[in-house]
């Protein structure tokens, strides 16, 4: 053992230390050819990444009642919200956003999540918040949407929504809270929710599909919410032209955001999902 290691070291450092060593075949081969088995292990799945699906939870009566109540609240809000102030679009939309988010949180509370679920959720949100700092040399490269999508693929639509929502909320708590917070929460939440709906039930997910979805979702979900939001927040009259202009002016930003999300998913979805899968299997969190 020692002998062979010593020789190995000599061979390894051959060009640096004493120039000529006598034996070339100093390599200690005590193990069989493992590289082939390892290769199959390591190849990133061109076939796809396996994902396990959870059991379906039933909502309790309490939550159902809350949801029905909220649903009934919608027309009421639209009617009276418009009358109360001279900024009816803003008032109505903010209230609708809140009504839209509440059921997810109530369903989560109602499920009585286990300690492991809570920790996993918190870790994912934490990663989404901190992720921003890692790519500081590329300021527009924000991995939050990608992490939300990956979480949703692995853990389902509802959890995806929560990860998105909480990531936006907490990220703003660290950077700056503003009138845009509810919109961002809802937008990231919806990105997660839709990703979960599309991909979570599947047995296999290919990373190409995921990164395509990532790119599109930034335009069709995130952009669809955030661009009109700026019109509603900052202008007096929400006109069709203004909304279109907001889409056009927001397009370059969305393009960068969508592109970076796609790149991120293309490279990271694979290993990230595997790591999540391992944690789920090892500690049976489903």
């Amino acid at each position, binding site marked *: 053992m020692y002998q062979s290691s010593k020789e190995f070291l000599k061979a390894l450092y051959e060009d640096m230390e004493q120039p000529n060593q006598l034996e070339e075949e100093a390599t200690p081969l005590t193990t069989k050819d493992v590289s082939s088995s390892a*290769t199959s292990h390591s190849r990133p799945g061109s076939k796809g990444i396996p994902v396990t699906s959870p059991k379906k939870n039933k909502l309790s009566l309490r939550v159902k009642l809350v949801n029905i109540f909220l649903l009934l609240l919608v027309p009421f809000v639209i009617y009276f919200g418009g009358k109360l102030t001279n900024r009816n679009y803003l008032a109505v939309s903010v209230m609708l956003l809140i009504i839209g988010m509440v059921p997810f949180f109530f369903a989560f509370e109602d499920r009585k999540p286990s300690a492991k679920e809570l920790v996993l959720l918190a870790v994912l949100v934490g990663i989404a918040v901190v992720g921003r700092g890692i790519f500081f040399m590329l300021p527009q490269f924000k991995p939050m949407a990608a992490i939300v999508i990956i979480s949703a693929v692995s853990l389902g639509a509802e959890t995806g929504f929560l990860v998105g929502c909480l990531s936006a909320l907490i990220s703003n708590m660290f950077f700056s809270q503003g009138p845009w917070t509810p919109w961002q929460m809802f937008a990231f939440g919806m990105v997660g929710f839709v990703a979960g709906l599309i991909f979570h039930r599947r047995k296999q997910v290919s990373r190409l599909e995921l990164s395509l979805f990532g790119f599109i979702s930034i335009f069709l979900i995130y952009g669809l919410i955030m661009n009109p939001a700026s019109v509603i927040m900052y202008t007096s009259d929400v006109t069709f032209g203004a909304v279109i202009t907001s889409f056009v002016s927001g397009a370059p930003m969305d393009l960068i955001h969508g592109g970076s999300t796609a790149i991120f998913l293309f490279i990271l979805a694979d290993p990230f999902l595997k790591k999540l899968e391992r944690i789920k299997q090892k500690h049976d969190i489903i």
Partner: protein
Amino acid sequence: MMMNLLEVKQFYFSYPNQSTPILKDVNFSIETGSFNVLFGKSGSGKTTLLQHLKPQLAPVGQTQGEILFLGKSVKELSLRTQSQDIGYVLQNPDNQLVTDKVWHELAFGLENLGYDTETIRLRVAEMASYFGIHNWFDKNVAELSGGQKQILNLASVMVLNPKLLILDEPTSQLDPIAAKDFLETIYKINQDIGTTIVMTEHRLQEVFPIADQVLLLEKNKPLIHGTPKEVGQILRETKGDMFLAMPIPMQIAASVEKQGTDLPLTVRTGRAWLDSLDLKEKLIEEISPVTSDSKKIVLEAKDVWFRYEQMSQDVIKDLSLKIYQGEFFGLVGGNGTGKSTALSLLGGIRQPYRGKIKVAGQSIQKYDGQALYQNLLGVLPQNPQNLFIKDTVLEDLYEVVGGMEDKDLPYYAISMTKKQMVEGISNLTHLTHLWQQHPYDLSGGEQQRLALAKILLLRPTILLLDEPTKGLDDFYKEELGQILQQLNGQGITIVMVSHDIEFVANYAHRCGLFFNGNLVSIQPTREFFAGNQFYTTTANRMARQYFPNGITLKDVVGCINHQKSF
């Protein structure tokens, strides 16, 4: 006769998909109010056994036999009783903290059990006062030191007033002073409140003198238990390799005397034992250490100053240091003296604001990142996990050299294939049997070796190590020490920062004491420790009046044997 708090009877446990049980026929009992220490090599199932004492945390698998808590099977205890009566503190201080505020962390357990606000307020206040937490009660947990975090973990378990307190290597991630404080607190709890303690620990030196019962768990062997002295005696007679983990005074006495039952546990009793031997003073002749003048300087710091931010205090003050080719240099010193910072400066991770670092005769700034860290400088981070990226050990090793394909890489202009290289390094670092494992499923010592292997694949000629023995038990330390010696034998220069005086004394050629941002003394290891009064090895503290420059166990035992024969 008082009822035993805990009784373990013929307990077996095996993990799913594993044919041999990891715990086999375990029998022992724990008296109410006693202090018990469980020890054994890693992988012997210590943690598994502890987890079974609190079934909430027990891993899935097959069990047999029974564990009785106050005469009742632990499995029948309700979750509420388990949570309240059996406290559990884990190894890593950071991972156990759940909330962001100290006060909330303290209240967390009581909230779970549904106490009302008034009761929680009182209990939390009580605990904070007892543990001296009141000074940092309002802080964020992120602001605490490692030692404070672990005390907080302990307090937030003690707030439930458990009957049994289980601790799984609670001090392994702490520096020696914080570890000592923590162990004293545990002892205080045991003495003041009478809480029964069961802990695993590898600083046996410190817990042996205070333990009522020690339990040795070894793979495929019956559990041995008894008073510390009894167990020491058994180990000596059976020549068990766990004897290596015993307190140094005990090991010295046991390797000299062939019989005799009263083995010393502490330095104080060890000295008394030495006095009884009637020895003469003797100096060890030095087998000349590296003669530094003749050697080439490979790494040099010249009048280096460093601070983290412009407005903050200097961390490194006018440091000058020369490292010679092929030497093994140990940098020791207390916590927060700047030794890790010094190492990161030497490794080019941080830049001094004044002064110069030279690597192989050239300023470190002249190298680009890849030239510096490939073939030249290797830096092993304190936490090996900071290097793990893939899902198996083998993939993780290949990852360093850019995957499995044999492409030509600039730092790969040697006649070896990648495969040969990975295999050779795996052999050297004893990782071959772990290739298919997930890096995070490895034990602390194995993770440390994997991290070292990854660094070695870049063929460093100078290796910088930051606390490589942190959290390792004595076996892993010895294994690591031997690997380092092999590397050293190949001519690789090693610079190591460590709290672990014993390890440094055993392996380093020269040592430097770091204090207040600078090196206060640099000397060959033997002279270094012999010259220190307090900051020296246990063996030296015990035997210095007879053998002033005997610093390791071997030195002292050799000297005694030279004069005495039993």
